[in-house]
């Protein structure tokens, strides 16, 4: 049996990075939300804000903890599986990742402690400051990592000599052409994620009639935010796509399922791309719309996948469908945000159970949209790792065998499944206990200490045995 280390490394990288990415995308949005809640409670002294903030800080702690452990894995992936790439691009990527550690990770770690456990130890102003610093840290971290990633899509400010990239201009390389779009799109995606999760959970509490006042406040606040952000994301995405058309035309051709260079290109709503025969097996589209969107001209010409040899094309079906999932969910988000606005009139929003149920369901959609978006971006870059300069095949670790790669791939899948199920289980438990828990646990506990992300919550691990816990059970095994 011949195992291909390249394919296995790609699957492994996609798996570990997708796993890691779902946590930051939520914590970035949530950190800012918590900072806002802290600001509101600092200003108005309304206990509802403190209650909300304490509750969401607990959720934040769990998610952040999982983000940290999976992130540590990421920083070694470049060396273990992509050592040729790491060697070639170290002059740029090394400083980027190091700056991320020294400017963001240490900042987040230090102030997180004060945020989680310091409410009764530091003055309210310092506590608010800590919340703001944690939120700032998440942005700084996104800045560096997305700059690094964008450079791989649009490599400028560097020159390739003897197989190694040398930086010729730091500012050009850091602020490379796709970076502003990717950064904005990603930050808005994080806010959408935070917004939809908070809105969905609040809607659920309203459905079962818990903590109505605070949860109404939370839902209302989120819906205002989403009303602006959801449409904004579509507009930013459009600009992002236009920029991609300029720098990576084959990725856009794959997104559109467009095989032959031509004019009057239709916008395909549905199609079954057939890479083998270089065509779509079946398609439904709106005439000329793709030309209009991409060139702002009804009979604009768009390059098709046939511009390059089949082996230089990205896997079309994955890109095509991931793109439709992302955009479809984006449109659904806009729809929900506007429905919320309409229902506000006369307070119908609090009575429309179908809407609250719908919002509950919507809380998972940002995670799907974000993962799909990354699949568009990353799979669409194939076969390149550094676009136009270094292919995936050149990048892989030379000494890596298929067996080794398979071993670690299976290993990571097993380890992450365990971590993830335990984490989600615990998170559900925090949500299940809800906001009420926050207040009566007022007395500070001497050992709740900073830098222990998950320990912010007082919730026992098992769901059902709280009442019957007896000492005999505890050590018995």
């Amino acid at each position: 049996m011949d195992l291909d280390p390249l394919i296995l490394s790609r699957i492994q990288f996609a798996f570990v990075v997708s796993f890691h990415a779902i946590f930051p995308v939520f914590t970035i949005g949530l950190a800012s939300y918590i900072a806002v809640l802290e600001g509101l409670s600092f200003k108005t002294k309304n206990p509802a804000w403190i209650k909300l903030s304490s509750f969401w800080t607990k959720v934040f702690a769990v998610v952040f903890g999982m983000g940290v452990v999976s992130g540590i894995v990421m920083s070694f992936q470049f060396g273990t599986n992509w050592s040729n790439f790491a060697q070639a691009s170290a002059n740029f990527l090394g400083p980027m990742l190091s700056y991320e550690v020294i400017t963001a990770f240490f900042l987040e770690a230090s102030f997180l402690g004060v945020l989680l456990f310091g409410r009764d130890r530091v003055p309210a102003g310092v506590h608010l400051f800590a919340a703001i610093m944690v939120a700032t840290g998440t942005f700084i971290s996104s800045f560096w990592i997305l700059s690094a990633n964008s450079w791989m899509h649009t490599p400028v400010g560097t020159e390739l000599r003897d197989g190694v990239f040398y930086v010729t201009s730091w500012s050009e390389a850091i602020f490379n052409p796709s970076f502003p779009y990717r950064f904005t799109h990603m930050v808005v995606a994080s806010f959408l994620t935070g917004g939809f999760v908070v809105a969905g959970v609040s809607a659920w509490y309203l459905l079962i009639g818990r903590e109505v006042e605070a949860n109404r406040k939370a839902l209302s606040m989120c819906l205002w935010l989403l009303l602006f952000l959801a449409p904004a994301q579509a507009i930013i995405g459009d600009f992002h796509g236009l920029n991609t058309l300029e720098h990576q035309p084959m990725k856009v051709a794959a997104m559109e399922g467009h095989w032959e260079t031509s004019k009057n290109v239709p916008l395909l709503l549905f199609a079954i791309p057939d890479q083998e025969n270089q065509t779509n097996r079946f398609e439904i589209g709106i005439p000329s719309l793709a030309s209009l969107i991409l060139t702002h001209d009804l009979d604009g010409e768009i390059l098709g996948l046939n511009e390059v040899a089949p082996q230089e094309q990205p896997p079309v079906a994955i890109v095509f469908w991931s793109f439709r999932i992302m955009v479809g969910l984006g449109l659904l988000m806009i729809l929900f945000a506007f429905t919320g606005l309409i229902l506000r009139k006369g307070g119908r929003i609090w009575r429309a159970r179908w809407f609250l149920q719908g919002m509950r369901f919507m809380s998972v959609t940002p995670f799907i949209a974000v993962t799909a978006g990354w699949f568009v971006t990353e799979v669409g870059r194939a076969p390149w790792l550094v676009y136009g300069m270094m292919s995936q095949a050149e990048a892989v670790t030379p000494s890596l065998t298929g067996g080794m790669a398979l071993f670690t791939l299976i290993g990571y899948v097993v380890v992450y499944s365990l971590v993830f199920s335990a984490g989600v289980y615990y998170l559900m438990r925090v949500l299940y206990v809800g906001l009420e828990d926050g207040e009566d646990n007022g007395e500070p506990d001497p050992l709740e200490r900073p830098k222990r992300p998950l320990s912010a919550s007082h919730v026992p691990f098992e769901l059902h045995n709280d009442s019957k816990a007896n000492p005999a059970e505890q050590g018995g095994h």
Partner: protein
Amino acid sequence: MEHFDLALIWAFIIGFGVIMYVLMDGFDLGVGILFPFAPSEEDRDTMMNSVAPVWDGNETWLVLGGAGLLAAFPLVYTILLPALYIGVFLMLSGLIFRGIAFEFRFKARTSRYLWNWAFAGGSTLAAFAQGIVVGTYIQGYETANGVFVGGAFDWLTPFTVLTGLGLLAGYALLGSTWLIMKTEGRLQEWAYKLSLPLLAAVLVVFAIISVWTPFIDDMVRDRWFSNLSIIWVLPALTLLCAFQIFRSVRNRFEGMPFVATMGLFVTAYLGLIVSRWPYLVPPDYTLWDAASAYNSQLFLLLGLLVVIPFVLVYTAWTYWVFRGKVRAGEGYH
């Protein structure tokens, strides 16, 4: 412009980062290694609480080590990691399990014993894997044209298993002396009892390694038996630290055993460095061969000089906030 030897400066910075990591994460991994042997479940709570506030920050130094190597000496990063491929995976899984065990153990009731094992097993695995890294480093790698060309299990030799066990014992010693400093009563007494046997184990492994290395490696032999006799100060200091640990444990001092153990680690570490200096990827590449581009090293150095003082202040501040003894029953559930 290029008249500063930046590669040399970076060698010091990375060297500093590595020993920071070893000392800081070393004692909390050590506490994990000793975990299953603790006198009681209540003592386990105390042990965990003694490192809980700081372990996460400690591990960030590891991330800095990885990213810093990539930035300053990419050749080390891209040879070491492929050479240790399976070992790195094992170390990371160990760190993951012990990281989440920290958090879930206190919430668990019936499943608590599982998290105890995740914590102890994860810490032990991570420590052993790091010892293997040291061993592989001494042993050297098979390289050609700047890439690793050896096999998947080259890192697994009797020698590296020995260094793995050595670091395990060393971390456990750091852990037990840390507990002497941070706890009292029965737990502290237990830690006192443990420290001397652990010290003996560490010294035995050190002795075997010191005799073994010059035999397998001409370069190391030449270095130690040439006219550069000044370096014999280092093993002398190591022995002095060992004696100091022995004496202070005997006399029931509280802080000194930990300080002396750190001294033991630092001097042994320096001894390792002088054996290999200036080779960063033994046996072929020096630190100058392994360095990244001059302007990349400079770009990061400038930022580092500004930011690292702040980082050190945060770290010191955290330890200061949590100074003093951790008491039983202070658990947080």
